[in-house]
């Protein structure tokens, strides 16, 4: 076990734009808005920041994408990309810089501008290929989880579709109460069940929102946190697992789990000292890119026993005032998914809930000590990078 960075780094300020189809804002606009909100949240002057990391899948390149709109004063800025986990990756790099002593105050920013390309849904950008990759969209990739899960656990496909719809309904119900969310309308079982098919068995209501947005965090060494705020959020554990892609070769991989999720959770729990996640975690923000992804995540992260996640869905375990609230801000489903921003948006909800600033979607009973989890996934179920982060309001 590595020594880790538990309790070495604290978040002192965060910001997040409303996620939306921002036809009249550029990526630069969104970066400026998220960064300046974060400066204000931390009560600092931007000149105090000595290093930045910027996460974006493809809205721009290099550190200049951030330094130019923010007019940063010749500080190191690095653009990082780790698929849909790019925002979490930027945060991880900023934390490590502070934990190592190389940096006193670092900022992580995530951004994505998806709505300028003229397509609905995500558009892949790759290098040269031999043209043999199967035609398989992101929703179809994650749709593969559904029939496999239902088949393995004897869930009738119609019942399965109802369970997936319940996940969408929960996230939308939370998003309704979130002024920063992209979609603020409750959805019904009927509208989920009858939404146009995108990748069978997934309809449009099983898919996350495609949006533009940005989010940011400023971190300092834990011992300095109280200079800036009375309510810092301490980083308890950060883990990324990049898989060898076994799922595409290995018939033993049965598409009812994402192995990278399991590994990232193990690492993060070990660093944070979590032994019983279902009992200990106060709230979680997970990567619900598509409804079956969230179902599988419950089991991968140890919130539900294997094969029992669907029962927990029906029992309301993960609803806003349930035993373990998941995606209280609406999740990717309702808050929207501007790729590079999503990882930081998830941390922003932990920040907001733990400061009891979540308004009508405030979780009433947050387990003590307050521990929040964010889970961010980039890639496909059979080959991806998965991130798990744990944050707490108390040291120790």
């Amino acid at each position, binding site marked *: 076990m590595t020594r880790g960075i538990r309790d070495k780094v604290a978040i002192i300020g965060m910001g997040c734009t409303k996620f939306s189809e921002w036809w009249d804002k550029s990526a630069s606009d969104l970066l400026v808005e998220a960064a300046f909100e974060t400066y204000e949240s931390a009560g600092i002057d931007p000149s105090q920041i000595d290093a930045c990391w910027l996460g974006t899948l493809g809205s721009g390149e290099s550190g200049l994408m951030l330094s130019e709109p923010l007019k940063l004063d010749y500080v190191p800025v690095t653009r990082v990309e780790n698929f849909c986990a790019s925002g979490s990756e930027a945060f991880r790099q900023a934390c490590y810089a502070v934990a190592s002593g190389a940096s006193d105050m670092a900022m992580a920013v995530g951004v994505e501008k998806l709505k300028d390309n003229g397509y609905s849904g995500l558009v892949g950008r790759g290098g040269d*290929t031999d*043209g043999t990759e199967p*035609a398989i969209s992101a929703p*179809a990739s994650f*749709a593969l989880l559904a029939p496999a899960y239902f088949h393995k656990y004897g869930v009738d496909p119609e019942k399965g579709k109802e369970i997936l719809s319940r996940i969408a309904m929960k996230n939308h119900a939370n998003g309704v109460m979130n002024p920063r969310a992209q979609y603020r309308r409750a959805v019904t079982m009927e509208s989920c069940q009858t939404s146009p098919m995108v990748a069978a068995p997934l309809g449009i209501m099983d898919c996350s929102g495609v949006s533009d947005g940005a989010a940011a965090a400023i971190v300092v060494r834990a011992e300095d946190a109280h200079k800036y705020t009375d309510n810092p959020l301490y980083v308890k554990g950060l883990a990324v697992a990049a898989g060898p892609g076994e799922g595409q070769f290995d018939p033993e991989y049965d598409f009812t789990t994402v192995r990278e999720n399991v590994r990232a959770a193990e690492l993060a729990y070990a660093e944070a000292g979590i032994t019983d996640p279902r009992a200990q975690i106060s709230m979680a923000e997970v990567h619900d890119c598509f409804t079956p992804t969230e179902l599988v995540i419950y089991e991968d992260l140890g919130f539900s026993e294997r094969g029992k996640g669907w029962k927990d869905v029906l029992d309301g375990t993960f609803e806003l005032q349930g035993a373990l609230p998941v995606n209280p801000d609406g999740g990717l489903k309702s808050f929207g998914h501007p790729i590079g921003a999503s990882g930081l948006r998830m941390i922003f909800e932990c920040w907001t809930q733990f400061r009891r600033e979540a308004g009508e979607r405030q979780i009433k009973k947050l387990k003590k000590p307050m521990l929040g989890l964010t889970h961010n996934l980039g890639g496909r179920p059979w080959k991806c990078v998965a991130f798990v982060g744990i944050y707490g309001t108390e040291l120790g």
Partner: protein
Amino acid sequence: MIGIIACGGYVPYNRLQRSEIQKEFGTNGLKGERAIAGFDEDSATMAVAASLNALSNGAVRDLAGVYFATTTSPYAEKQSDTLIAAALDLSDQIRTAEFTNTLRAGTTALRAAFDSVTAGASSVLVTAGDMRPGGASGQNEATFGDAGAALIIGSENVLASVVGSASIALDIVDTWRNQGDTMVRNWDERYQMAYGYGEAIPRVLKAVFEETGVKAEDISKVIFPVAPKAQALLLKQGFERGQVADSLLNDVGLTGAPHPLLMLVNELEQSSAGDKILLLGYGEGADAIIFEVRPEIANFKPRRSVADLVASKRNDITYATYLKWRQRLDTEPPRRPEPSRPSSPFMRRRAKNNLALYGSRCTACGTPQFPAQRVCYKCRKRDEMEPYGFRDKSGRLTTWSADYLSYSLSPPEIVAVIDFEGGGRIMCNMADTRPEQIEIGQNVEMTLRKMFTAGGIHSYFWKAQNIR
């Protein structure tokens, strides 16, 4: 003795009922249905499918040549024989040639193969595929069909020996399609009957009978790959109606260069030792070949007979869908980025993977994997791999989705995870499959298809399909 040592046909799964066309234009006409290549098939993929069928019983090895006959070659410049040879995983020490630009290409390629084997080649694959364009609402569109066929010519274990053959070359403009033309055109039918096959067929029959000493009454079946109405010409040449082979017009259509070969395969599959079969090919002259079926025919069975393939079908394709597949309708493209041109160096590096569906098998732990890997996913050993073929392995469907979003001429594109008997997995698209035909655990087989064309380059790869 030289002759046919293996054979196999290929009829695509999809059919267009001719009444569908007539419904659209408010006309009456030909009954029955025609075979149509899927949106992801072309002349070369159909030739590969027929060749795999011919090679399926494993009797033939060490082919010395591939002759591909087509009037609709996937490329105007660049042969497809090499693609076919690569898909069949043949040695590179072979001769290849494309026989093209005439309906007679199939029979002409056969005669060339006889010469090659006579000159010492061990065996030569003659394969054909065509998907000829007929103008919308016209007679050609209704009568044409798409198909493939394959015959292997050799000198050992001959199923049907060559008794003799003859050719006549006559320059005539009766059926033609120029560079850039989008449809086949024809001169007056009566002129064709008088001076097209009306002239060539009697002359080639005379020549082949003179050479072999065989007479019309000795022939069990005469194969003349034209519509039954035109086949009537044979009756004036001394043949009885019962000798005339089924033109397959009603179920398949007239398939162009492969048609004489497909009809021959169909007849061979129903023939018995001692039968004499006369094969005619027509186009700017004619070819005639007489075969004598040998006792070895009793031991030969391709994986799928022409009759099996004709019976295995989907025939509810609408006329508009057919036009869309052929890109003869100005349909709205998918609202997704168009595929970019595949990289030729990338394609070359992966040729064995992509065309013959090889992966690798770790010699340290024995685990098969696709595509070929350097480091084993199972035991993590480096570079202890040997090539491992998946093409002929049967597969089982583990999970799937119907993708309405990805770029496709025929959504939804079925995506499937296939686990092979003996180990290994592939994630691929499925061909000729509708969502309601899928169940987890069902068996599938692999079929070479065209993924897309971009920058004038065709990208070919394997898809899974329900077992036909």
